[in-house]
């Protein structure tokens, strides 16, 4: 029971810190949100390429996989696993392991656009 509470706490802290880092960049630099997302994702790829990010995933669970850097981790991890199977696997492994997220985002967004109309901008 204690370990479950602790794991929520770790997920909260690590996830919160990654988001705060992004907010720091938004506040104190001129980098736009879109570029920050790309940078964080690439950060996840690079850290996992060196085998570092998986320690964070073991430590924080969803706190590490839910932020966009976790998407990069998933891509890099898939490519590394694919590379063990051959050249084609090395190229396709990344997208293969990220396919669930991209497919979900595409299909749900399509249905969403059919069902809902955009709300007028709330100010």
């Amino acid at each position, binding site marked *: 029971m204690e370990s*479950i509470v602790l794991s929520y706490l770790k997920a909260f802290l690590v996830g*919160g810190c990654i988001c705060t880092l992004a907010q720091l960049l938004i506040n104190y630099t001129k980098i736009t949100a879109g570029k920050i997302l790309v940078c964080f994702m690439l950060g996840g790829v690079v850290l*996992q390429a060196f085998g570092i990010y998986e320690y964070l995933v073991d430590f924080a669970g969803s706190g590490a996989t839910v932020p966009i850097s976790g998407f990069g981790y998933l891509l890099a991890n898939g490519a590394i696993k694919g590379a063990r199977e051959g050249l084609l696997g090395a190229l396709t492994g*990344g997208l293969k392991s990220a396919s669930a997220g991209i497919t979900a985002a595409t299909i749900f967004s399509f249905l*969403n656009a059919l069902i809902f109309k955009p709300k007028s901008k709330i100010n």
Partner: protein
Amino acid sequence: MNKKIMSNEQYLKLVSDITPKTNEKRSLLSSFLVGGFICSIGQFIRYFFMLVFKMHGDELASATSVVLIFLGILLTGLGVYDRIGKRAGGGSIVPITGFANSVASPAMEFASEGFVYGLAAKMFVVAGPIIVYGVSASAIVGLIYYFFGL
């Protein structure tokens, strides 16, 4: 008439004094809390899949992402997510729900311009770069591991 004439430096100082501070500390706090909260929900879903469906590893992360993406898009459709985003900034952009929001939002916005050039073409206007550079970087990582056998 007692008009004050200011130098450029004085004027710039005045501007920076008058410009409302964008509550930098508060935005940091709210992005920490919102980001942490979304990740905690992710942790809950993670436990659910782990205990009920006996998933593990990357499969577990993918399944969790799919549920969060669904929730993020539903909240986008209902117009709730943008309201959260106004206050939370990084806390709502960085989690995978923000990625989902960035896909669903333009698709919904441009649906009126047609199914092909509106909805579908605009869907990845923000998320596209993430996929382009993510897939490219992962291919590079894969090739390095393949050729150098790390």
